[in-house]
C-alpha cells in the first residue's frame, strides 16, 4: 500500500525532487510526521495547501492516493 507525493514550486527543493512514493498513512498529519523533520516543517506551514487526487481540503487518505503539496503561487 502506497501514496504518491507531489511537491510543487519551492517545496521540490525541500523534498529533493518533484515526486516520491511513500508507504500508506490513513491520515495527512501522520503522513507528514513520517517525513524528514525539515520537510515536515515546510509542509505544515499554513501557507501550504494540500490537494488529494486534485481535490483541496481532504485529510483522510486512501491507498494509491496522489497527495500534492502546493506552496504560495506566483503566476501571471
Amino acid at each position, binding site marked *: 500500500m502506497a501514496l504518491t507525493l507531489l511537491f510543487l*514550486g519551492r517545496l521540490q527543493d525541500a523534498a529533493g525532487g518533484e515526486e516520491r512514493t511513500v508507504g500508506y498513512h490513513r491520515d495527512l498529519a501522520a503522513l507528514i510526521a513520517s517525513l524528514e523533520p525539515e520537510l515536515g516543517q515546510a509542509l505544515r506551514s499554513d501557507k501550504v495547501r494540500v490537494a488529494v487526487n486534485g481535490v483541496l481540503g481532504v485529510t483522510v487518505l486512501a491507498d494509491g492516493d496522489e497527495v*500534492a503539496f502546493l506552496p504560495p503561487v506566483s*503566476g501571471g
Partner: protein
Amino acid sequence: MSPDARLIDSPFDPSEELRRFAEAHRQSGGIASFIGQVRAEEGEAAVLELELSHYPPLTLPGMRALATEAGQRWPLDGMLLLHRTGSLSPGEPIVLVAAAARHRRDAFLAADFAMDHLKSEAWFWKRERTAAGWHWVEPRAADHADKARWENSPPI
C-alpha cells in the same frame, strides 16, 4: 459569455490571439487586454530563463472559474485567459488576458480583476535562472494587496 481559458506549453503570439478575439467580438465596443512578458534586461541580475510549473488538476479549472466570476461581476461579451507553462526565454509572453464588453470600463475592470487573481490565486509557480543560478519567484505583498482591492469596495 463562454470564456476561452487555455494553458500553452510553447511560445505563442499574443497579438495574433488578440486579433482573433477582436474579430470574434465585433459587436463589442471595447477590448481591454494585458500582456505579461519575460523582461529582457542586461546585466548581472538579468533573467536568462523562466520556468513556469503548474498543478494540472487545479490550474485550468481555476482559470475557467476566474473567467466565469468576471463574467458574473461585469457584463462581458467575451473573456480570454492564456497562460504559458514550461521554459520561457527573455521577451516571450507569459500571459494574455483580454475582456470584450459593450462598455469600456467593464472591459478594463474585468481584465484588471483577472490579472490580479491570476497572480495571486491561480496555481502557477515561477522560477528564474540568472547568472547566479535558479531561484523561486516568491509572491509579493503587493500581489495580495492588489487582489484585496476587489473584496470589499471594488474599484470603479
